[in-house]
């Protein structure tokens, strides 16, 4: 709770820092803020071409695979982007930490929030894609789309916890960043992003392992709302929120344990 209190006290500064982060990301480009829309659009176009004409994945239900993939990938990109940036955020902001009294909590929070905003900016593209594809009769429009907002809560908590822990650990252990890269790769393929757990024909043990992946519930809940047009069963929602809560709790605990020595190690 103290983390929340610190963040709330510095909310104005966090707003400035998030703004600076987003500015830095888009300012350099001629297209400015539209870059945030073009990025997911480009991604979607590439998937549409590759998975319609080049690969033709076996996929139950006959739903358009590019949209399926896109709706699973967007929250994942939020998570993995924030975690990767999180592993460098405290080191990058070392000058501020070492010379001004500055709560280190600010920087992981800024990383998460700026990636969240980045994600929110991609939602209109996802929405439009759903509208277009349902208008073309490829897919029925997911009326559960607004539920994304609720599905984002466990994503935010999970990402927050992970970024808090990783930011502070990578200050103390310099090989953390490499490790994070590998772990993210592993996590990506073990999460039901490019595939669905439903009707997956794999050995039972592998299936069990894949369901144990904490991110599985988050991906499914999000995609059910954004793409499949159904409300996930309550136990799946519960799992997602429990994963979020545990991650947040654990992450902030780890952060608290290493917090005092951040300045010395940075």
């Amino acid at each position, binding site marked *: 709770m103290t983390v929340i209190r610190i963040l709330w006290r510095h909310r104005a*500064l966090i707003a*400035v*820092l998030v703004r600076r982060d987003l500015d830095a990301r888009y300012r350099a480009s001629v297209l400015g803020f539209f870059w945030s829309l073009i990025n997911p659009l480009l991604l979607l176009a590439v998937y549409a071409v590759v998975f319609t004409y080049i690969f033709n994945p076996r996929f139950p239900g006959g739903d358009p695979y590019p949209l399926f993939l896109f709706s699973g990938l967007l929250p994942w990109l939020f998570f993995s982007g924030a975690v990767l940036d999180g592993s460098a955020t405290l080191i990058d902001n070392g000058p501020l930490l070492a*010379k*001004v*009294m500055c709560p280190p909590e600010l920087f992981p929070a800024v990383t998460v929030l700026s990636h969240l905003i980045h994600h929110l900016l991609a939602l209109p593209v996802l929405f439009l894609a759903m509208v277009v594809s349902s208008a073309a009769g490829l897919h029925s429009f997911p009326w559960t789309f607004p539920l994304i907002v609720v599905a984002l809560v466990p994503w935010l908590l999970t990402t927050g916890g992970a970024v808090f822990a990783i930011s502070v650990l990578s200050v103390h252990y310099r090989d953390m960043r490499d490790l994070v890269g590998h772990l993210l790769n592993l996590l990506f393929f073990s999460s039901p992003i490019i595939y669905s757990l439903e009707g997956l024909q794999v050995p039972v043990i592998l299936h069990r392992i894949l369901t144990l992946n904490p991110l599985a519930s988050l991906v499914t809940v999000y995609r059910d709302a954004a793409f499949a047009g159904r409300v996930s069963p309550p136990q799946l929602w519960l799992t997602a929120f429990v994963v979020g809560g545990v991650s947040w709790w654990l992450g902030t605990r780890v952060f608290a344990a290493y917090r005092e020595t951040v*300045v*010395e190690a940075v």
Partner: protein
Amino acid sequence: MKGSIRFSNVRKAFRWRGSRSPHETIKGAFFHRKTRRRRTSREQFVALDGIDLEVTTGEAVALIGPNGSGKSTLLKLIGGILKPTSGTVEVTGRVTALIEVGAGFHPEISGRENVVINGMLLGLGRREIEERMQEIVDFADIGPFIDQPVKIYSSGMYVRLGFAVAVAADPDILLIDEVLAVGDEAFTRRCLDRLARMRQRGVTMVLVSHDLDLVTSFADRALYLDRGGIVTEGPADAVAARYRSDAAGGSRRDDPPQPAREDDDKTRWGNGNVEIDTVELLVGGKRSRLVAGGSPCSLRIRYSVNEPMEDFVFGVAWHRSDGTQVSGHNTDLAGFEPLRLATDGEVCCEYDSLQLAPGEYLVDVAIHARNGLAYDYWCDALKVRVTSEVEWPGVWSPPHRWRSTGPEWRIGDEFRRATSIEHDE
């Protein structure tokens, strides 16, 4: 104003980093588990130990000592940037720190944005920062660089901006680490003037410097640190003298610090019927040797009487270190007729506005009979440094204004506050 600092029995130890520590990496942490517990004491470097310190509101304290003696660590503990390993640190009031060449700036973003971020970290609101932005930009005087990323700044610009933000944040406590050494002469002069004004307002200051002249003119008190401990503390000139002799001799002597008062025949004489104990410059009610030009201040002379006297004059004379006489005044010229001087006490000479040009001044103080017989005549009893934003030549620096009708002018930001021009159409 409420800026006070109290340290009790503070210890700060760091863990060795880099090649000496096997725990820099996750791999190391896993494979050196056993050695970790056994070697904790050897892996630590004690930067400060057993530090007791008390700084009251409005005091200026200097930290001196050789490199690596713990001065910057002490400053960072006051600033809350580091936490003590043991002991307690209590600090009240808003602290701003200028540590190791400038405040903390983010290299990738512009000076202006850094000012906003720094200002907010120092506790200012957005609007307050916007209000003070022009003042900060003027003081830093780095021109169009203010909108460029900080990474392209020269070290001088970095310090200018850092200083400008720190003083604009209106701190109760200001921590300064060697920053005055980096700027050019004109900027150092303006900084010093600003610091003198802040001192007069009652801002508490802690200064780390190797410039002992600055230390003695700036600080009331000094702490001499070596290898993480306090060697001695006391009046700034005494401590500076001790440090000087240690640094020259390279040895540590345990004799008490010698007061830097020069009692030899050439600079002090008299029959001793009345003796001057101390001569102090008071600025804003506090002892100081630094005064911003044009400020009110007073000289306080404390004396003790050995023989009661009926004929006595108190006098002071100001001169430059090159011998140029500046001013002399005494109680006789002011029309004070002596009646009786029997008890110890003090006499103050008050100045509404010390209209001296910037530089160093020496003050002679004397108590003598009306015919000139000296009871105690003390040359160079006090050294005072007068600061100003502009390097006025000469010794007299009256407030003044230029009026003009013909010429057209442009005034640099630097001078705008110090000068004013009225242009009559």
